[in-house]
């Protein structure tokens, strides 16, 4: 049995029983990385030596009989937009090609505290802007199910690493679907928690009112374990919410009797492949057979979510990315005779095409004379999106839709069609605008590629979407399928 193919909770049980050591598990993962990484290209940086040190420390603590949490000794991959002390953190951008953070992101620190073993930093679309990893300044990650296809994005490296068993689990970040869409494309579980549930401290900011860190895992039980470890108030992130963190694992029951499911028809339109829609609807029927109930609803405001997002996210990005000035970290242009030229050339040389485009849209939308027509209008539209979800959740416990309108598309297929690329996020974007939690898990396959089902919940009610996902998973075996590599 290959240890790297197991889930975190399976490994936890074996570690607890002293059947394996963290060193053995970590070596299995590092061996797998050596074996397949030239084809998958999930990692920007592999931290093998540090991982073995951390594994040894975990083994020693367990040998001494110290209390070990469920993730102690388990190898994890971290998206390369989360700060890791002493380890290169690039955001897959030339402008941060040499950035070594002097501190850890809170989520990273919390995982280290419970003894998880970081094996490396994963590839992403530059600054998390994209849906395929093709916007990485370094290379494109390949989908383990079909190496000619994209893994999704922006957390494509994290999703591919988990799918290819190059990590037991991973952290990603989600601004408009960047955890859920790659989870869907790579056939793993991905959760975007409620905005404020997990600290964003040390997550390199893209759009601060939308960004959220979350887990990518091999099954729902692992999602619950990881969320448990990273959720909670952090004094270093004033937007993290001071609310009790429930016991997510204890809440995992295979039971959806009486669960009220809403099916928003707008999320089955806009370019959704018929095979995807029918697989998700079949999944909902299956939940009904297990005792849930569902009803179709209409949320017409969702048609406005895409333009709203593509105004708000670039506006926040144009402000957040103003910090890359060639002064404090990262790239500085060699041609810097004066400060303004230094700024303009550093940013020209350091940012890729997609990032520049979004900075331009955002700067324009925020500039004098256009603020009311664009930015303010979009913020008002956002209010209406949130209200539509609040209304829906008066009647329903969860909403279910496809995660992505298509299965994984081919590398290079959409790079010249920015609008088609953005449509990849049409089902996931509204959730970030509303700030609610949503999970993606596999509910079928089309042409050998995984199809993701998205389950959305009330703010801070991760328990219910986890329970619905767990029930689906325990009664199906899609999550047990592995790509042939």
């Amino acid at each position, binding site marked *: 049995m290959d240890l790297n193919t197991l889930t975190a909770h399976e490994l936890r049980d074996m570690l607890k029983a002293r059947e394996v050591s963290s060193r053995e598990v970590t070596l299995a993962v590092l061996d797998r990385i050596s074996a397949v990484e030239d084809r998958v290209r999930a990692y920007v940086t592999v931290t093998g030596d540090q991982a073995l040190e951390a594994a040894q420390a975990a083994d020693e603590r367990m040998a001494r009989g110290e209390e070990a949490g469920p993730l102690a000794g388990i190898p994890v991959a971290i998206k390369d937009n989360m700060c890791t002390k002493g380890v290169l953190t690039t955001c897959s951008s030339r402008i941060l090609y040499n950035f070594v953070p002097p501190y850890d992101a809170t989520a990273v620190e919390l995982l280290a505290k419970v003894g998880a073993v970081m094996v490396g930093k994963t590839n992403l679309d530059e600054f998390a802007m994209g849906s395929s990893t093709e916007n990485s300044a370094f290379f494109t990650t390949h989908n383990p199910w079909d190496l000619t296809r994209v893994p999704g994005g922006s957390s494509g490296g994290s999703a591919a690493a988990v799918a290819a068993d190059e990590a037991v689990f991973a952290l990603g970040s989600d601004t408009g679907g960047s955890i859920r869409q790659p989870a869907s494309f790579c056939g793993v579980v991905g959760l975007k928690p409620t905005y404020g549930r997990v600290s964003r401290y040390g997550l390199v900011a893209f759009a601060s009112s939308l960004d959220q860190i979350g887990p990518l895992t091999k099954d729902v039980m692992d999602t619950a374990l990881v969320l448990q470890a990273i959720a909670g108030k952090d004094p270093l992130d004033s937007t993290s919410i001071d609310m009790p963190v429930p016991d997510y694992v204890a809440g995992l029951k295979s039971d959806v009797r009486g669960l009220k499911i809403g099916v928003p028809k707008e999320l089955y339109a806009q370019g959704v492949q018929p095979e995807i829609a029918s697989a998700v609807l079949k999944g909902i029927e299956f939940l009904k057979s297990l005792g849930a109930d569902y009803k179709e609803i209409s949320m017409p405001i969702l048609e406005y979510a895409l333009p709203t997002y593509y105004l708000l996210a670039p506006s926040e990005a144009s402000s957040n990315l103003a910090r890359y000035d060639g002064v404090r970290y990262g790239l500085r242009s060699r041609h810097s005779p004066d400060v303004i030229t230094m700024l303009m050339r550093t940013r020209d040389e350091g940012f890729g095409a997609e990032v520049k485009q979004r900075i331009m849209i955002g700067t324009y939308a925020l500039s004098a004379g256009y603020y009311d027509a*664009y930015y303010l209008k979009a913020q008002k539209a956002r209010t209406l999106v949130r209200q539509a979800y609040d209304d829906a959740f008066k009647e329903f416990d969860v909403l279910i839709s496809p995660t992505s309108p298509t299965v994984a598309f081919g590398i290079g297929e959409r790079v010249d069609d920015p609008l088609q690329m953005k449509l990849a996020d049409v089902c996931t974007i509204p959730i970030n605008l509303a700030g609610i939690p949503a999970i993606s898990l596999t509910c079928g396959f089309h042409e050998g590629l995984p199809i993701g089902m998205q389950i959305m919940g009330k703010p801070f009610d991760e328990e219910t979407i986890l329970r619905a996902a767990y029930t689906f998973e325990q009664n199906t075996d899609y999550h047990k399928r592995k790509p042939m590599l």
Partner: protein
Amino acid sequence: MKLSKEEVEHVALLARLELSDEEKERLTGHLNQIMVHFEKLQQLDTEQVEPTSHSIPVENVYREDVVGPCLPAEDAVSNAPEARDDYFVVPRVVEM
């Protein structure tokens, strides 16, 4: 409404982005293509709607004004392209 190349140049200056002529051309095209889709928002009646800046209501967070742990200066400048004596070095900004 259509953006001209001059407007794109102005926005690029605001964003502190030096763009090549080729990039200016391409961005002018792209921005105009994307702006068309933003027009859809104008159909929405938002007369009575308050804007949302954060999905979760957050209030100002206060804490005691006491010194906590902070990054040593030498760590803070450790990533600087150029630093001297715990200061960031930039091209001269004042005339001598």
